[in-house]
């Protein structure tokens, strides 16, 4: 009990760090994932191939390796001197986007065929069909898998702590370096993660109920 109060500022910063890394990379993953899903169902073969390659490659790479790529390779190519926070968000976002992409793609396939056919017969283009007809209806089936994807993202964000970011893992490292017993630290950190993951699944459950439609 004492540990949490003695080091409350550290715990608070770590908690907020985990929250902000998770939120930022969730947004990035959502945007990239939807774009990639669009690529994967598009009528243009090169974009389809690009989407497939993106998903296959990133999904089969360990996240730690992606972090190494982000910290060693990316600064050489694009912007030298990017902050570790942005690099971590980039790695996490790209990695998670592949899972979002697959969730969205399977959501697209649950929309009844008639909807797309009706849209086409109205003369809508592919982009219009996807944006105005298919994706809004796919949202409902995409939300439950998204919830577990974001919970997984929260847990993966711990790796960012090993790459000079302030979040809950770096707090546990700091406290054990100071010589405090790891057992209590572990329990408090676990509790922090439980708070975040429970709130994510709670928020998504509320969203699910809001969007529920009697069919």
């Amino acid at each position, binding site marked *: 009990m004492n540990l949490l109060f003695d080091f409350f500022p550290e715990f608070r910063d770590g908690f907020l760090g985990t929250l902000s890394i998770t939120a930022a990379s969730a947004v990035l993953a959502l945007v990239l994932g939807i774009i990639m899903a669009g690529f*994967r169902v598009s*009528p*243009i*073969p*090169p*974009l389809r191939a*690009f989407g497939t390659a993106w998903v*296959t*490659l990133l*999904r*089969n*790479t*360990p*996240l*730690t*390796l992606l972090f*190494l*790529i982000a910290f*060693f*390779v990316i600064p*050489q*190519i*694009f912007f030298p001197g990017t902050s570790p926070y942005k690099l971590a968000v980039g790695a996490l976002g790209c*990695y998670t986007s592949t*899972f979002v992409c697959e969730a969205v793609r399977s959501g*697209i*396939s*649950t929309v009844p*065929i008639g909807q*797309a*056919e009706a849209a*086409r017969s109205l003369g809508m283009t*592919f982009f219009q*069909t*996807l944006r105005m007809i298919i994706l809004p209806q796919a949202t409902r089936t995409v939300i*439950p*898998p998204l919830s*577990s*994807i974001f*919970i*997984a*993202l929260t*847990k*993966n964000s*711990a*790796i960012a*702590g*090993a790459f000079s970011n302030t979040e809950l*893992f770096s707090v*546990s*490292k700091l406290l*054990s370096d100071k010589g405090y017993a*790891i*057992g209590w*630290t*572990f329990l408090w*950190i*676990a509790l922090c*993660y439980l708070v975040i*993951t429970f709130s994510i699944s709670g928020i998504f459950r509320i969203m699910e109920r809001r969007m529920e439609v009697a069919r």
Partner: protein
Amino acid sequence: MSASVLYDAPGPKARIRNRVYSVIGSLAVLGLIVFVIVRLNDKGQFAPEMWDIFNYAGIRNDIVEGLLTTLKVFAVAAVLSLALGALLAVGRLSEHKAVRWVTTGFIELFRAVPLLITIYALWVLFLTYKSELGFEGTQTEFWALVIGLTVYNGSVQAEVLRAGINSVPKGQREAAYALGMRKTQVMTTVLIPQGVRAMLPTIISQLVVTLKDTSLGYVITYEELLYKAQQVAGNTVVNDDNPYIPMIIVIGCIYVALCLALSALASWIERRGRRAKSGIAVAPAEQPVAAADALDVVDQAEVAGPVGTAAKN
């Protein structure tokens, strides 16, 4: 709904438009790749000397050693996590309330905590009691990594197995009890074999996650492939620079090849299972969500289960 439902069969105009977009799309992708290569080349990352390091026996041996260490961790963790998974799954389906609660608590706790934090806590714990536990050299890191992977993946495998066991048609269990089998016999000779069969693709996909997560050993400075490679690159100086990028490219290819091989095995088994008419739906070989959570897969399995059950009943 196949993708082609989203757009009409292209007419003459649309075909031209698609072709234009194709060209623009390929040019954009190609442009990005060329830009990356040119930038890396400017930094001298493609200089022959940088890549010459892989001709040295020492460096090659280090990479092979790292690869073997990774495979060793993966093999031990895979076997232990499957054993623990079976134990926890049976525990969760037990008729005794106390056993059920303990296993459920264990599974929920270790599934909710990030694997990295579990591994790190175990590492610090093992370092503190190193002499009492009788660890020597890198054994501390090895066991921290293996046990961390085991408790996390064991919990996930337990959920997967439980979904598999629940997907076995009810008649199987009833028939087994009617033959006078005991609880243990029903579980080991009737339910688990069929449950494993149904969930084999998912189990192997989770093994891919286990394989990927062995790279977390990097954080606790265990000399598996990733850490070893990074260390070798850090100790080698070519043209006043460390060959991090050639090294990352090479070990990236190794990791992707390993994971793709395992994933291919999973989808092969899935296709094979769908062909067999055993009445048990085989779970999809979807890789569990985000290297971490099998929740999604379990949901899918629970959807997949009743399909088989409905067909049977």
